[in-house]
C-alpha cells in the first residue's frame, strides 16, 4: 500500500506539471481555436531566460518572475505580430497551426544559437534528492515545491478567469467572438492576454521540470506531448478537464511504470491519446461535438 501511495504521489507531482502545460494549451485552444505547437518552445524560452539570469548570479526571486514574464511577452508578441495578421487575412485552421510550428522552429534555433545544444544543469533552490516524510511516504523537496507551484498556478488562473472582469471578458470572447466584439470588448488585447497567461503557465512548468531533466533546446518536447495528452484526456475545450487530465495522466503513468514496466511508461501517454480519441473524442469533461449546418 505504501508503495502504491509513494508512486501515486510522485506521479501526482509530475501530473501537476502536465496539468499546467495542458491548461495553457486549452486556454489557447478555447480562446483562439488554435492548437499551439509552440507551447513547449515558449516554456523553453522562459526557462532559458531564468537559466541565463541565475547563472549570472541573480537570485531566484528575481529570475523566476522575469522568466515567466519573458515567456508571456514572447507569446503576446507572437499573437500580435503573426497570428492576428494571419487571422485577419482569413488564414485556415491548418495555416494557423503551421504558424505556431514556425514560431517553434524560430525559438528552437535562437535558443540553440544563444545557449548551444549541450545539455546544461539548471541551478535550483529545491533539492531533487532531499526527502521529507509526508504521512507514510517520502517526497523530495522538488516534488513538494512542484505541487505547491502548480497549485498556485492553477489557483491564480481560476481566480482570474472566474472572479475578475478580465476573466469575464475572456470567457465572453471564447464563447462568442463576434458578440464580444459587438459589445465593445477589446478582443485582440484579451486574446493576447490569454496567450500570455498560457505561456506564463508553461514557463512555470518548465522551471520546475528543468532541475529533474537537463536543459537543452528540446527539453520541453516530451512534457509538451504529455500536456497535449492530458488536454485531450480532459477535453480540449475544458479548463477543469485539463487539470484533471494532467493529474490523472501523471498518476496513471507513474503507476504503470511501477507495476507494468518502465518501457510501458514511455508509451503510456500515446496509448491514452489514441484510446480517448477513438472512444470518446471530446474527452472526459468536454461537450460532445455538434455541427450546425
Amino acid at each position: 500500500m505504501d508503495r502504491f501511495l509513494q508512486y501515486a504521489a510522485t506521479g501526482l507531482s509530475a501530473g501537476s506539471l502536465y496539468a499546467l502545460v495542458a491548461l495553457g494549451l486549452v486556454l489557447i485552444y478555447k480562446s483562439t481555436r488554435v492548437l499551439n505547437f509552440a507551447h513547449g518552445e515558449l516554456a523553453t524560452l522562459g526557462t532559458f531566460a531564468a537559466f541565463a539570469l541565475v547563472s549570472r548570479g541573480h537570485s531566484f526571486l528575481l529570475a523566476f518572475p522575469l522568466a515567466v514574464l519573458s515567456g508571456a511577452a514572447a507569446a503576446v508578441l507572437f499573437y500580435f505580430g503573426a497570428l492576428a495578421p494571419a487571422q485577419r487575412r482569413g488564414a485556415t485552421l491548418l495555416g494557423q497551426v503551421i504558424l505556431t510550428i514556425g514560431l517553434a522552429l524560430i525559438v528552437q534555433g535562437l535558443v540553440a544559437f544563444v545557449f548551444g545544444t549541450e545539455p546544461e544543469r539548471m541551478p535550483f533552490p529545491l533539492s531533487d534528492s532531499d526527502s521529507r516524510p509526508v504521512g507514510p511516504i517520502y517526497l523530495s523537496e522538488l516534488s513538494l515545491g512542484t505541487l505547491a507551484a502548480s497549485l498556485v498556478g492553477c489557483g491564480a488562473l481560476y481566480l482570474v478567469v472566474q472572479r475578475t472582469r478580465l476573466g469575464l471578458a475572456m470567457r465572453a470572447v471564447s464563447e462568442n467572438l463576434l458578440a464580444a466584439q459587438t459589445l465593445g470588448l477589446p478582443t485582440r488585447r484579451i486574446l493576447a492576454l490569454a496567450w500570455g497567461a498560457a505561456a506564463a503557465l508553461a514557463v512555470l512548468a518548465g522551471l520546475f521540470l528543468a532541475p529533474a531533466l537537463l536543459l537543452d533546446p528540446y527539453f520541453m518536447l516530451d512534457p509538451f506531448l504529455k500536456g497535449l495528452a492530458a488536454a485531450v484526456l480532459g477535453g480540449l475545450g475544458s479548463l477543469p478537464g485539463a487539470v484533471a487530465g494532467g493529474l490523472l495522466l501523471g498518476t496513471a503513468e507513474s503507476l504503470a511504470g511501477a507495476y507494468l514496466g518502465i518501457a510501458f511508461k514511455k508509451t503510456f501517454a500515446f496509448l491514452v491519446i489514441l484510446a480517448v480519441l477513438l472512444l470518446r473524442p471530446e474527452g472526459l469533461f468536454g461537450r460532445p461535438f455538434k455541427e450546425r449546418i
Partner: protein
Amino acid sequence: MDRVESYREELGFARGRVNRALLAAPLALALALPFVGSPASLVRGTLIAITAIGVLGQNLLIGYCGQISFGQAGFLAIGAYAFAHLQFLPWPLALLGAGLSAALAGAVVGFPSLRLKGPYLAIATLGFGIAVYQLLANVSWLSGGRTGLSVARPPLLSLYCTDVLLLALFAAATSNLVSSYAGRAFMAVRDSEIAAESMGVNLTRTKLLAFALSSFYTGVHGALFAQFLGHLEPELFNLGEVLTQFVAITVGGLASVEGSILGAAFVVLLPALFGGARWAVPVLFGVAILAVLVFQPGGLAGLLRKARLYLEQWPFR
C-alpha cells in the same frame, strides 16, 4: 488566362506556351545536372527528388484533402524499414512493397479521420508517428537493434537518374490525379464535408483513399531515403522530419504540384547554404513560414502563378 481553342487542348498536360516553357526548364536542368554539376550538386539533386515525392504525397492529404496529419514520420519509417527488410526482392518489387505497406498503415490511420476533425486528427496522427518510433526503438528484430539496418546503396549517378525519373512519374501522376474524379472529390471534402457529401461524394472512401495514397508516396519516399542513406536508425524518423515536410508544403504552396517540388528544393537547399550555422536553419524555416502565411499564403507556387500572369499580360496589367 489561357485561351483554350479545342477540347484536345483542354485535356492537354501543359496548356499554353508559358506553361510548356515552365515545364521544360526544370526538366532540362535535371537532364543537364549529371553532365555539368559537381558530385555535391548531384547529391542535392537526388535528395530534392526524394523529398519532393514525399512532399507531393503530403500535399495530396493536407493541401488537397485538407486532413491535417502529423504522422508522416511514421509512414516514412514504415516505408524505409519495409524496403530494408524486402531487399531480397527485385528492386521495383521492394519499392512497391514499401509503398504498399505504408499505404496500408495509412488506411488504418485514416479511420479516425472519419470521426475526428482538425486539431483532434492532428493529435491522433501525431500519436501514431510517435508510436511507430517507440516500436522501432524497442523491437530490435524490426530495427536491427543498436547497430541499425544497412541498405545496399547504388552508385550516385544511377541513384540520381532513378530518383529524378520517379519524381517525374509521381509528379505527372499527381497532376493527373488532382484533375480526375478522385482529386476533385479531395478538394470538395476539404472545402466543405457536408456539401461534398450531399453532392454524392463518398466521404469514407475519399478520406481513406487520400490517406492511403499520401502514405504510399511517403512510403516510397522512405524507401528511396533508406537507399540514399544506406543505413537506418529509428532516430532518423522523429518529429523534426514532420516539421521539415510542413515547411516544404507551406513554403512551396498548399495544393500545388509544382509548389511541392519547389518546397522540397527549399528545405534541401537552405540547410546546404547554411552548413556552418546549424542553428540558423530552423530560424530561417520558421521565418519563411511566418512570412509566407502572413504575406503570401500561396507560397512559392502562388508567386510563380502571379509572375506567369504578369508575363502573359505584359505590358497590360
